[in-house]
């Protein structure tokens, strides 16, 4: 007896999935969706600062990707970079329309270990984090994007380069200039960073369930 099984989408490359999705193969697009939903959501979440706008914009990113997938040229940029560019444009429009720059509430992101073990440190850490966040908010758009793609998305310099349309070397240089700018900004305000937060483990992914 011959067993009939469907295509193995899970092991296909992005490029192959995109070709199938362009021909109207919904499960192929579904596989791409599964691969990138969390990454795109994170990107948008950190650029908007709240869950509801992050969900709205993430939905629009994938809706737009689905409607324009025939126009995607795989010889240009990888599919992931194309998605990030859609996200970047939608977030830029969102900022322009709302004339605001939001950032995540700090309370959510103090490492729980610090909250439990050293409550006396919390006020100090929160103040440091506030200053750092304020400094990050002052950075130009491309530098904020770089920090996000590197630390939240955990992409390599080469991958970040593809998204931002720069070389790997240019990304290394931009990262250096970004940290130097943050150091200068904090230094000008008389704030010397300490690495007390760094000794604790990075918090587990935060889940936004309904």
């Amino acid at each position: 007896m011959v067993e009939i099984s469907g295509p193995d989408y899970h092991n296909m490359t992005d490029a192959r999935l995109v070709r199938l999705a362009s021909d109207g193969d919904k499960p192929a697009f579904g596989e791409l969706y599964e691969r990138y939903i969390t990454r795109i959501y994170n990107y948008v979440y950190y650029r908007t600062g709240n869950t509801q706008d992050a969900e709205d914009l993430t939905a629009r990113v994938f809706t737009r990707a689905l409607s324009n997938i025939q126009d995607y040229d795989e010889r240009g940029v990888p599919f992931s970079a194309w998605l990030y560019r859609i996200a970047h444009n939608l977030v830029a429009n969102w900022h322009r329309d709302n004339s605001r720059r939001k950032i995540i509430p700090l309370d959510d992101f103090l490492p729980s270990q610090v909250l439990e073990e050293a409550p006396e440190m919390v006020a100090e850490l929160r103040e440091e984090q506030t200053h750092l966040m304020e400094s990050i908010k002052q950075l130009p758009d491309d530098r904020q994007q770089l920090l996000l793609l590197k630390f939240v998305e955990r992409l390599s310099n080469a991958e970040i380069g593809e998204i931002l349309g720069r070389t790997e070397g240019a990304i290394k240089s931009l990262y250096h200039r970004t940290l130097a700018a943050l150091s200068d900004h904090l230094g000008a305000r008389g704030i010397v960073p300490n690495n007390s937060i760094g000794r604790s483990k990075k918090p587990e992914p935060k889940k936004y369930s309904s």
Partner: protein
Amino acid sequence: MHEHEDVRIQNILAKHADALINGDVNVEALLQQHGFAHNERVRQMMQIAEQTYHLMPRVEPSEAFVARLRHDLTGYGQPVTMLEWLRHLQWDRAAFERTLQEQVDRLSAGLPQIHLDKPLDRFRHMPFGMQVAAGLTITAGVFWIASRVRRDGLLAAYSPRASEQSA
């Protein structure tokens, strides 16, 4: 010379970032290895990188959101009803407006709209005049039932048998 120093700093910062992400960072060893053991500027930039990294944990989208969007885009998975979705949004006016906007976006992209619960679905598909009529009928029905309950209560209270019993 200055340019060379910049490249060395870029390299150590790149390695430090990779180590941070991989969870095996050793600042002192890196500084020694790259000849920056006494460079406070580089050390400070690494500390800022570390703080920034810890300030940005990865977040997970809600399962309801992921499921609904998957279903809307591909038609696969469990559909999420409008009521469930509004519950997820913790119903408020702004959320409702966003949902409406999303419906508009979906329609222009040729995608199906968000599913509604069956009774609401039927109501939504009625012509506007019929929706008004249905709304008025339901309201009138509620008032009629309420007035009957009140009338029956008054009749029972003032009926001769009730009077005798109270006497």
